[in-house]
């Protein structure tokens, strides 16, 4: 049997590499294979290089590189199928979860939230991105790929936005509004104009465009839904009613207090109550003045329907929720704490007289709602003081 020399091995390896075999495993495999052929099939006295030239064409049709290409093709093609399967599975899972979640939500059964969130996130963060990747792997035209990728990206934004909206998470409106805007005015025209000229796609393109326009347009109509005017009127009326009541009670309390002002504990409680009451009035006026950009004096007696930006939350977030100054939530909370301690001492058996701050919507809300809540606290303070003053004997 012929023994192959080290120089010949080097020659074969260099030749394999020069012919475009990059994968090291494959290089080794081919090298060993060729060596085996040489050792087993070469006749005594035959020239090695001539023999090599003769046998190498066994490995390919046109060039040696084919074998490398075939290997990478097989390996990536497998991923392609795995991806297609993931798309199918994630699509089914998200579809089922969203549907079930929606049913549970309408029926007020527990577990609706988690289902919608999981389904929506699966849809927008697994299903749609994989669709983009698959689109890029398919051998369609380049423009088609980019147009579809853009569309899927916007769909991802809109789907995430809807999930956020359902869960009352921040930036939901931003996500939904911009995604749908770009979808309607960016993707749909692109889709239409890149495909309408192709005769075989004309019919489908028209139908899809109309469908997408209708769905996108209807989504748009849903963004700025306000409560009905009837409901708004009732809310405004109750706000005014609360404020009027508090004013009346404060007046009555002042009269009552003048008769009892010589008693030290009465004086102290009256002071605390008045202080907190006025504090809240100040916060309200300040927030209205800042948000609507009007003078403080005008803001003091504004009713809800005169409010310009009742849906705004940026100013209250900055000054009230996250602020640290006089008009901040933190400051208010500490003063309510002091007040509550006093109330506990005066009414040891009446839990309901304590201001239950945790039950009120003071965070993550809009100006009109916050004003309602603050007025409610004011009314409670005035009522509590009134019942205290009435119970004290002269």
């Amino acid at each position, binding site marked *: 049997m012929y023994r192959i020399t080290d120089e010949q091995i080097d020659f074969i390896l260099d030749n394999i590499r020069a012919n475009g075999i990059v*994968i090291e495993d494959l290089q*080794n495999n*081919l090298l*060993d294979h060729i060596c*085996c052929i040489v050792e087993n099939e070469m006749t005594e006295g035959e020239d090695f290089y001539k023999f090599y030239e003769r046998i190498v064409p066994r490995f390919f049709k046109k060039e040696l590189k*084919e074998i490398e290409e075939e290997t990478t093709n*097989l390996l990536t093609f497998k991923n392609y199928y795995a991806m297609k399967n993931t798309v199918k599975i994630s699509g089914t899972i998200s579809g089922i979860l969203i549907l079930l979640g929606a049913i549970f939500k309408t029926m007020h059964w527990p577990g609706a939230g988690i289902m919608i969130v999981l389904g929506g996130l699966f849809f927008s963060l697994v299903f749609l991105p994989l669709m983009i990747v698959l689109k890029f792997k398919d051998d369609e035209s380049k423009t088609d790929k980019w147009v579809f990728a853009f569309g899927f990206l916007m769909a991802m934004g809109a789907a995430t936005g809807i999930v956020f909206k359902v869960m009352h998470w921040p930036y939901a409106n931003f996500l939904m509004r911009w995604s749908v805007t770009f979808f309607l005015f960016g993707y749909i025209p692109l889709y239409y104009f890149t495909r309408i000229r192709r005769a075989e796609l004309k019919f489908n393109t028209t139908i899809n465009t109309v469908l997408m326009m209708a769905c996108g347009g209807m989504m748009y109509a849903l963004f700025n839904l306000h409560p009905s005017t009837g409901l708004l009127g009732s809310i405004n009326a109750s706000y005014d009613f609360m404020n009027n009541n508090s004013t009346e009670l404060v007046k009555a309390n002042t009269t009552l207090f003048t008769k009892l002002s010589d008693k030290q504990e009465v004086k102290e409680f009256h002071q605390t109550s008045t202080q907190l009451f006025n504090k809240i009035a100040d916060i309200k006026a300040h927030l209205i003045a800042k948000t609507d950009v009007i003078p403080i004096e005008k803001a003091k007696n504004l009713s809800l329907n005169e409010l310009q930006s009742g849906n705004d939350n940026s100013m209250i977030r900055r000054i009230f929720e996250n602020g640290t100054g006089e008009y901040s939530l933190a400051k208010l909370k500490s003063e309510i704490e002091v007040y509550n301690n006093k109330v506990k001492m005066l009414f040891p058996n009446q839990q309901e007289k304590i201001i239950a701050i945790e039950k009120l919507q003071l965070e993550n809300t809009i100006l009109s709602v916050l004003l309602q809540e603050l007025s409610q606290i004011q009314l409670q303070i005035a009522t509590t003081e009134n019942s205290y003053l009435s119970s004290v004997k002269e």
Partner: protein
Amino acid sequence: MQYIIFLCIKNYIHKNIMYICPMYSSELIKGTLKTIVLKLLKEQGKMYGYEITQRVKELTNDKIQITEGALYPTLHLLEKNGEVETETEYIGKRVRKYYTITPKGNITVDLKVNEFVDFMNTMKFLLDVELKIANVQNNR
């Protein structure tokens, strides 16, 4: 007269196909390569690339000759799928890669063989092979 010539030609072609036994087309082998390789590894234990080609050639009387261009991509795929394992051995300056079948590969090979048997039966039926043999016998 023409009919007799036609029969002669037909007979000649028939004989050639049946008795000269050329190598099968690569398209035909491609679909079954995975099955052949896995089955061979299952029966023979550890083998390297050249050995596999020679063994197949031997077992089939040169009827099936696996091309290197198809064998190595398949081996790499099987390795990635975890259906075969490899160990390397240094022979002087070169490296030899031995392939052995894994438990996962054992499952695959059974599935593949069953699938192929089923396929053969279906093809027999579809191509009417038995019927044709019967026809020939009837003609006689």
